[in-house]
């Protein structure tokens, strides 16, 4: 019952301490991790946004340069000059020398006839009049096509510019090398999972992506998600991973430059930090749990010990209180009994006196009367003795201080009891410390103490045994032990032996007041009596007296 109470308390303390200690730790850990990963993500998003913008600028610039050189060539040559095979070849060389990335170059008149051509394919003589781009370049002046297969069955795109010459106009058209163009776009790829490509508004790839498709294939991105100039979105890819996509529209508004990135790829630093954090928190939690359990165990054990001590102390206090109350009661009872006894004694005395008068002297029962009176007197005397010892006759006396030699008193007392012990074949041995000083005390009271304890020891043994009396000095205390090898005192009786009227002796042979008076005397001298008893082994009474040095006279 009591044990479970402490176990309960211990569990409660442990649980409360752990909750209070661990909750903030875990909350702090998660919050920090969340904040840190958010910051990290923001940074990655910012980076990818910036890269897509920069790359879009670069692609725009590339197209603008190509368009510009084409326009410059068209402006600086007439149609007649341009259709000359030698001239167009030279122009093509100059263009590739200063700008590069052109695959071929052709001149088309306003009717759509391909008049001149430099390049690897035989396209001269084809008519482009029906092609949609031709109409557009004729109306707008410049034109950049989407990537398409065309006559040559290879993905490519063209740039065309119109030259107005007098009333008529013609078109200079060049094909851009898809490998070089694709290379420029792809240069924005980074990491193991990064990708960069162009898609059309309808989602068709305009350059080869690294993953998830091929040129002129259909991308799974919905371009409507990308508004404004640059937009970052997160979307799951085919493999089910969350991927960040940043798309920037080029100036022509037809092409979207997309840079994709798996954030996990860039967050390895974060994960490392997270792992370190988890390890620290786990070790922290372990340390807290162990420390909590250990300290709680210690605390509860202390508490338990303190409780035990307190209980003992309380028991002692109750005992002292009880004895004090009994003492007060005894004084009252003594008065009430002694007065009647006094009257009885005087009355019997009076009867005794009268027995010697003549009338009675002749009575044949005179002897009987006298005997009865004597027995009454004897029993009054016995009652008187009980009441007087109950009052602790000695204890009520003001202890009268004199120089006392403890060993001397012990020896004297033993001398008095020697005969009694010898009759019962009990040996009394002494082991007295010569170092014991003369102290201030009451010799008569001390003699009563030793008398009670040693005669009790003899009575406890009964016949055949050994009583040892030891005296020792320790610091400011003298300890006198009276050890018998009698049957011992049962545990349940050990607490009662100092109670008045508690006796195990035959009725009439002990008043049950000896140890009570002894206890009071020792207490009055500022000492203590300790009882140790083991069944079948014997009993030890230890009297501890403080050393009070007598005043010098």
């Amino acid at each position: 019952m009591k044990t479970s109470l402490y176990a309960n308390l211990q569990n409660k303390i442990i649980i409360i301490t752990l909750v209070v200690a661990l909750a903030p730790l875990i909350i702090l850990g998660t919050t920090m991790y969340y904040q840190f990963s958010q910051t990290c993500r923001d940074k990655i998003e910012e980076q990818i946004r910036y890269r897509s913008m920069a790359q879009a600028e670069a692609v725009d610039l590339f197209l603008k340069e190509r368009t510009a050189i084409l326009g410059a060539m068209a402006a600086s040559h007439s149609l007649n000059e341009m259709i000359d095979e030698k001239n167009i070849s030279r122009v093509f060389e100059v263009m590739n020398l200063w700008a590069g990335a052109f695959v071929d170059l052709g001149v088309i008149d306003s009717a759509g006839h391909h008049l001149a051509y430099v390049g690897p394919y035989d396209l001269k003589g084809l008519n482009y009049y029906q092609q949609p781009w031709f109409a557009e370049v004729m109306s707008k002046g410049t034109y950049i096509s989407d990537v398409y297969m065309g006559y040559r069955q290879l993905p490519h795109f063209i740039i065309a510019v119109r030259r107005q010459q007098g009333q008529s106009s013609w078109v200079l058209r060049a094909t851009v090398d898809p490998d070089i163009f694709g290379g420029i776009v792809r240069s924005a790829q980074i990491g193991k999972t990064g990708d960069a490509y162009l898609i059309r508004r309808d989602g068709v790839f305009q350059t080869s992506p690294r993953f998830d498709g091929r040129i002129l294939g259909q991308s799974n991105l919905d371009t409507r998600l990308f508004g404004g100039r640059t937009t970052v979105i997160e979307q799951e890819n085919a493999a089910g991973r969350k991927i960040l996509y940043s798309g920037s529209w080029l100036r022509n508004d037809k092409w979207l430059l997309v840079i994709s990135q798996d954030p996990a790829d860039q967050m390895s630093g974060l994960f490392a930090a997270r792992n370190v954090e988890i390890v620290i928190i786990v070790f922290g939690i372990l340390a807290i749990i162990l420390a909590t359990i250990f300290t709680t165990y210690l605390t509860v054990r202390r508490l338990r010990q303190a409780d035990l001590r307190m209980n003992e102390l309380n028991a002692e206090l109750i005992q002292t209180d009880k004895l004090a109350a009994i003492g007060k009661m005894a004084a009252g009872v003594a008065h009430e009994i002694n007065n009647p006894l006094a009257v009885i004694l005087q009355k019997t005395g009076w009867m005794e006196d009268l027995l010697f008068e003549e009338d009675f002297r002749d009575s044949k029962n005179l002897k009987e009367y006298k005997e009865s009176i004597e027995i009454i007197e004897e029993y009054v005397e016995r009652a008187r003795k009980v009441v007087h010892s109950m009052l602790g006759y000695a204890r009520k006396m003001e202890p009268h201080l004199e120089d006392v030699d403890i060993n001397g008193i012990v020896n004297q007392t033993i001398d008095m009891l020697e005969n009694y012990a010898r009759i019962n074949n009990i040996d009394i041995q002494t082991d007295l410390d010569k170092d014991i000083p003369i102290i201030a005390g009451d010799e008569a009271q001390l003699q009563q103490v030793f008398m009670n304890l040693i005669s009790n020891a003899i009575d406890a043994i009964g016949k055949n045994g050994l009583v040892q009396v030891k005296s020792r000095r320790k610091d400011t205390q003298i300890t006198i032990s009276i050890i018998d090898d009698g049957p011992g005192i049962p545990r349940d009786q050990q607490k009662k032996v100092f109670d008045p009227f508690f006796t195990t002796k035959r009725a009439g042979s002990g008043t049950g007041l000896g140890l009570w008076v002894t206890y009071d005397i020792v207490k009055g001298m500022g000492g203590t009596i300790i009882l140790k008893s083991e069944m079948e082994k014997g009993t030890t009474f230890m009297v501890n007296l403080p050393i009070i040095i007598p005043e010098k006279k």
Partner: protein
Amino acid sequence: MDYFRVLIVDDEKPFVDTLVNRFNKRNIDTAGVLSGEEALELMKEKLFDVVILDIKMPGGMDGIETLREIKRVQPLSEVILLTGHGSVETSIEGMKLGAFDYILKPVKLEDLLVKMAEAFEKKDAHDQKIRSAKIKELIRFPGRVLDQEKEEK
């Protein structure tokens, strides 16, 4: 001196009566009263050599108060205190106030007689001293003592 006068003061009537009877039977001039007030009343009229006084009497004057008054009325009489319980402290206080001794109840008549004899001896010795002092005084200044005696009357 074989003849002396004794007063017994105790609230227990049978005790007082019996004791008075027993003392009188032994030719000791004894009177008994049941309270301190009665004792003082009687002592104003009659001289006693020894007073046996119970310390604890319920109601009215207690033993110690009575003792104080007795010592005022008849400073030369000796008082033996009787105590029914172990209030030795009170007995000691009584002795400081001039009581001769104390004795615990119940007491055997023989023991009481011994104490009384001792008390009387002391008182007698004291009286002797006073007498011899008076005699010396009378021899040296006969007139003064006679004048004093007159004044006292």
